């Protein structure tokens, strides 16, 4: 199983280490030529969505990646990655891949002083640690979206088909369960 990790900016190295620890083959996407290699799933890491969105477009990655997602390649976005997947942003004019029909609020918990750690239920996994760093949350989700986790009533994890978006960072706190969940989606188990 080969997972491509978008590596234009952000904490892609942490995702790579975690995916490798679960037995996946991993490679980085930094420019157009990297997309010629076949992959079974794609990870969009945390970072700054404005930077990643701009680099995706200017490095010619945006359209080919969007086509792959629309063609059914499983994709997993954390934090900035969730913002890239969302159909609508409530406090930003940008829209990126538009493949997860949810409305996301950027920097929903404010500045760094609002960053926090929680432990909550994740549907199908159980109680897991969640690290929120200047995080977004999902304000609303369309009916066909499966809400997987909430913190204080706000949606922090959602899935529709092969598209999984979460607003926290399992890649930095050592808990591999959500990555395992994603690899199960890639393998068609979940």
């Amino acid at each position, binding site marked *: 199983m080969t997972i491509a990790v978008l*590596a*234009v*900016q*952000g*904490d*892609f*190295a*942490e995702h790579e280490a975690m995916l490798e620890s679960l037995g996946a083959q991993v490679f980085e996407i*930094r*420019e157009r030529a990297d997309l010629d290699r076949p992959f079974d799933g794609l990870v969009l890491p*945390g*970072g*700054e969505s*404005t*930077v990643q969105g*701009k*680099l995706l477009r*200017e*490095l010619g990655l945006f359209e080919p990646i969007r086509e792959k997602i629309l063609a059914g390649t499983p994709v997993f976005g954390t*934090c*900035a990655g969730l913002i890239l997947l969302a159909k609508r942003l409530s406090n*930003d004019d940008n829209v990126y891949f538009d493949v997860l029909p949810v409305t996301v609020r*950027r*920097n929903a918990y*404010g*500045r*760094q*002083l609002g*960053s*926090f*750690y929680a432990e909550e239920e994740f549907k199908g996994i159980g109680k897991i640690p969640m*690290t929120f*760093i*200047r995080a977004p949350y999902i304000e609303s989700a369309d009916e066909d979206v499966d809400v997987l986790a909430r913190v204080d009533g706000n949606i922090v994890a959602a899935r529709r088909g092969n598209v999984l978006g979460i607003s926290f*960072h399992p890649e*930095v*706190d050592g808990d591999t369960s959500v990555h395992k969940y994603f690899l199960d989606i890639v393998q068609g188990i979940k």
Partner: protein
Amino acid sequence: MENRYELNKNLAQMLKGGVIMDVTTPEQARIAQEAGACAVMALERIPADIRAAGGVSRMSDPAMIKGIQEAVSIPVMAKCRIGHFVEAQLLEAIEIDYIDESEVLSPADDKYHIDKTKFKVPFVCGAKDLGEALRRINEGASMIRTKGEPGTGDVVQAVRHMRMMQSEIRRLVSMREDELFDAAKLLQVPYDLVKYVHENGKLPVVNFAAGGVATPADAALMMQLGAEGVFVGSGIFKSGNPAKRAAAIVKAVTNYTDAKLIAQLSENLGEAMVGINEQEIELLMAERGK
């Protein structure tokens, strides 16, 4: 369990592979964000101007910092003087995302750095070598950058500091465990941090390059030498075409090994900042705060 220090280290992880740009106005902050900055450093005068103006250089006006916070959605950092924990308290009060306890400003204390463990907001600190880096981390810094020599447009010192840190890290990795106690003594840092570096081959926090980066090639050089991201201060807004240069540096940091792309990015960028050679500098900011 809420561990501010972990959360603060995590924010630095999100900045990796990115470029943090010095800005002095909301307009510059917007240009930086448009160009792909992953964060901005709000300050009244960029280092080149601080150098030219001379005199005591202090924390920026909070109103000016707030103006920049309102102008952009990316994280906003600001500098306080080395040891000036009240300036740091003020920056925390206006909810800055990262404090740079910086040698670019005039030091307020020639012996003690700020006890950064007493703060909820994160700190980044400069370092010339591994000992300085680990001392700052021991004081609570959750991100490190090379000092370089700010405001010069001369990358030589950032290169020296990054090479020094990386070679000292490699040396610790190669040591026998019973040699680490002596290494800790010589580096003047706690044994636990030395042991971490020995076992992991890297600092326990993110490490960026800073000081004197002026071109896409400079930025890629620092990345190839092991930096996890780059601060660009005077290099952008002291150049002929800030927006274009900023965007080119951002792309060079992402694809820092693609010489063909960086060559393209380096075409027609207009004039780079003039720069001062190391030998021509009267004030070595990197010697502040060890």
